[in-house]
């Protein structure tokens, strides 16, 4: 019995280690070597469209609503202390430091990450990746690399847009609806938000999350069992693994950035 358990643990450990190894090799192969800008830039733009522009709608809508909800909930608590003037900092700091990067990453994993996994898994299942390899075109460089860079570029931009829209949403509810003074909303925000400490740390967070999400999505697709069942499992795994990894890393990054 114990031997069986041990064997199972060992098997799983070895599996995950080799998974990490394959994921590392994939990234290594995709990013190493001199970039070919003549061919690479059009591919990158195409992927920025697929990964970035197509995710914009969900980011705009959820950013707006999360900003509005924050303002509504924050107001009901702050008004008890007569501190509704602090609504601006509450909304902006929660968005910039935490909700912006994290919610963007979670939405991104659901919207773009799952699509990437499915796309690459399908390309693998229909032998498109093998075919490309046999045509002496490296699929890591041709398929993986532009998607990776597009994701790493697009996600911080999406997070910035999410933050801005969220703060405007907070303004909408706090100022237009609940009647907080517009001047104090913005000035209290300006007095409490720091460009480096808050805005740029948020951007750094979302760059880290982008690396994690896009890496997991690409690897799960590239490593998928090339059957329809395998692809659907890989897609689910991408969303679950990427979301958990984002939340875990968020704690680590928050402790490093704001904990000290």
């Amino acid at each position, binding site marked *: 019995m114990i031997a069986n358990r041990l064997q199972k643990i060992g098997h799983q450990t070895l599996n995950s280690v080799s998974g990490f190894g394959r994921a590392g090799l994939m990234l290594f192969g995709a990013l190493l070597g001199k970039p070919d800008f003549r061919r690479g830039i059009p591919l990158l733009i195409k992927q920025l469209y697929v990964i970035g522009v197509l995710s914009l709608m969900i980011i705009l809508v959820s950013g707006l609503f999360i900003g509005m909800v924050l303002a509504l909930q924050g107001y009901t608590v702050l008004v008890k202390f007569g501190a509704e003037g602090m609504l601006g900092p509450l909304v902006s700091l929660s968005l910039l430091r935490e909700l912006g990067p994290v919610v963007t990453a979670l939405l991104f994993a659901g919207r773009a990450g799952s699509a990437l996994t499915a796309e690459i898994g399908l390309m693998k299942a229909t032998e498109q990746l093998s075919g490309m390899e046999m045509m002496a075109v490296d699929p890591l460089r041709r398929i993986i690399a532009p998607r990776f860079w597009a994701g790493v570029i697009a996600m911080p931009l999406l997070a910035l847009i999410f933050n801005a*829209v969220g703060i405007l949403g907070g303004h909408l509810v706090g100022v237009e609806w609940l009647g907080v003074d517009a001047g104090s909303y913005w000035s209290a925000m300006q007095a409490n938000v720091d460009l480096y400490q808050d*805005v740029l740390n948020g951007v750094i967070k979302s760059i880290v999350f982008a690396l994690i999400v896009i890496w997991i999505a690409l690897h799960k697709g590239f490593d998928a069992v090339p059957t329809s069942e395998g692809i659907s499992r890989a897609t689910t795994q991408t969303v679950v693994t990427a979301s958990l990894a984002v939340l875990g890393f968020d704690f680590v990054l928050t402790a490093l950035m704001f904990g000290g």
Partner: protein
Amino acid sequence: MTARKIEILVGAFIVLACAAFLMLALKVANTGFGGSSQTYTLYAQFDNIGGLKVRSPVKVGGVTVGRVSNIELDRVSYSPVVSLEINADYSNFPETSSVAILTSGLLGEQYIGLLPGFVDDTVLMLGNGDTIEDTRSAIVLEELIGQFLFNRGN
């Protein structure tokens, strides 16, 4: 979907993101890109700084002219020394000026209020690295209440 349309949409996406960043930097955050402007440093020694923090504002009549850049304890007197980074645009404070640690509102943040002193022929202007001698420490609420009770007892 033509390549041209995709490029236009991607361009719009990037512009939107830049606009969002500019809004966050200029309208939401306090410094903007002001970190690059010229500053000079003054020092002030207090008995007690209360809840003053690095990056707390330095205000003259309510106008922010600088920030606290550093707080440390003097090794000899064991009293806190605060470094003030003052915008170089406001460079003519006389050495008779005084600083006080004030609180904005009852529960608000603490900041340093700088009160410019009188000027006559014998008074020099404060320059980079000078120390402001006339300081008033933060009011600590507990001490205040304690004093009040003590006085009543008398």
